[in-house]
């Protein structure tokens, strides 16, 4: 007993020492923030995007949407128990995928456009082929012990999931089995984003931390703190060296991987609503953040100023997304509508 206590004391001392070391190393490179550096950047001016389409079809709250890599098709998930695939150029519905469980929280399109994945309070990730004559369930990935909050395909054979059981998981779609389980968060994982090179991904969780993971080794490489409440959304900045988070603490933050810390916070005294979703324009200059206040606010990512707002939803904006060609932004809401703006 005494020996164990002694070992615990040694380990605790080492933990404290390492934490102090990390903080000191971060402070040592913290020679100025983004806002001051961005003083020389050109002004973005007022960003006034117009509502181009209101997509009507779901009968209940929309929880998630994801663009296809063709920048034209888009899939949405609603707790009316359906996934809808839309042709955003015409506004037509292309495919309806009925769900076994209506409590869906996340939906994703595979880069190929052949497969879609969804999941939620059923703790499973269901993968379907939407190119078949009628949508066909390919796999039910069942191993998480908590809700599925987010899923992203690497390809038609691999998918990453984030769960309320505090883990993320890489699955092999050919076998339907877990390949790697990523454990380190101490709160529900709410969101994940894959890096462009697919070697790493970042996750945001209810422990208010964001983490960078090595996809192949399964290890957590970096941990980013700063938020004071659940992180609900996370997206990579297009250069792959930074990412943006959105949190219940009503702020968004940009973290840089190579400085290992936060470089700017997007917050405003008048904004007292949690952030549900974030997406970035193609240059990374604009951050579209969906809030519980029914709006999607637009931030200048470099200067940290609010530069616009997308108003029109009658309930919480639950999801936002910019397609690969950067030609617009889609917002989805608990009001059951999806809106396209540019």
């Amino acid at each position: 007993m005494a020996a164990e206590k002694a070992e615990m004391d040694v380990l605790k001392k080492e933990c404290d020492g390492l934490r102090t070391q990390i903080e000191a190393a971060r402070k040592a490179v913290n020679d100025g923030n983004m806002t001051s550096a961005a003083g020389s950047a050109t002004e973005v001016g007022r960003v006034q995007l117009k509502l181009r389409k209101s997509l009507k079809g779901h009968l209940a709250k929309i929880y998630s949407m994801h663009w296809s890599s063709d920048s034209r098709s888009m899939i949405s998930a609603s707790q009316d128990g359906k996934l809808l695939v839309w042709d955003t150029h015409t506004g037509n519905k292309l495919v309806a995928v009925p769900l076994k469980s209506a409590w869906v929280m996340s939906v994703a399109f595979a880069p190929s456009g052949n497969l879609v994945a969804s999941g939620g309070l059923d703790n499973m990730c269901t993968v379907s082929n939407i190119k078949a004559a009628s949508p066909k369930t390919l796999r039910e990935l069942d191993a998480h012990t908590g809700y599925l909050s987010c899923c992203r395909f690497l390809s038609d054979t691999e998918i990453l999931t984030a769960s309320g059981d505090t883990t993320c998981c890489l699955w092999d779609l050919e076998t339907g089995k877990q390949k790697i389980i990523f454990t380190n968060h101490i709160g529900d994982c709410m969101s994940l984003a894959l890096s462009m090179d697919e070697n790493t991904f970042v996750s945001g969780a209810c422990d208010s931390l964001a983490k960078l993971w090595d996809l192949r080794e399964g290890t957590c490489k970096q941990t980013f703190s700063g938020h004071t409440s659940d992180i609900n959304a996370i997206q990579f900045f297009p250069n792959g060296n930074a990412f943006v988070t959105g949190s219940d603490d009503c702020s968004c933050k940009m973290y840089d991987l190579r400085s290992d810390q936060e470089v700017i916070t997007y917050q405003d005294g008048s904004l007292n609503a949690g952030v549900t979703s974030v997406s970035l324009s193609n240059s990374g200059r604009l951050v579209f953040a969906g809030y519980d206040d029914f709006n999607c606010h637009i931030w200048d990512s470099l200067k940290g100023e609010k530069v616009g707002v997308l108003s029109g939803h009658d309930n919480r904006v639950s999801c936002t997304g910019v397609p690969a060609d950067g030609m617009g932004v889609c917002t989805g809401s608990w009001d059951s509508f999806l809106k396209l703006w540019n």
Partner: protein
Amino acid sequence: MSSKVHSSNSIAHARRTVQQLRIEASIERIKVSKASADLMNYCSEHARNDPLLMGIPTSDNPFKDKKTCTIL
């Protein structure tokens, strides 16, 4: 018996935490000023290819409803 299992779990947990912190402590960090400059450069280099920043001419707008012409 059970307290021994509990404490050995705590030790295992503490060891994992130390291991994780060692990984996180060992990385190279660049200055925030350099990181900020790189982000700014990326934005300015890609601004012209950002339709939401530059604006989209009506004729090229894929989401705009195409209205049909009526001959009166």
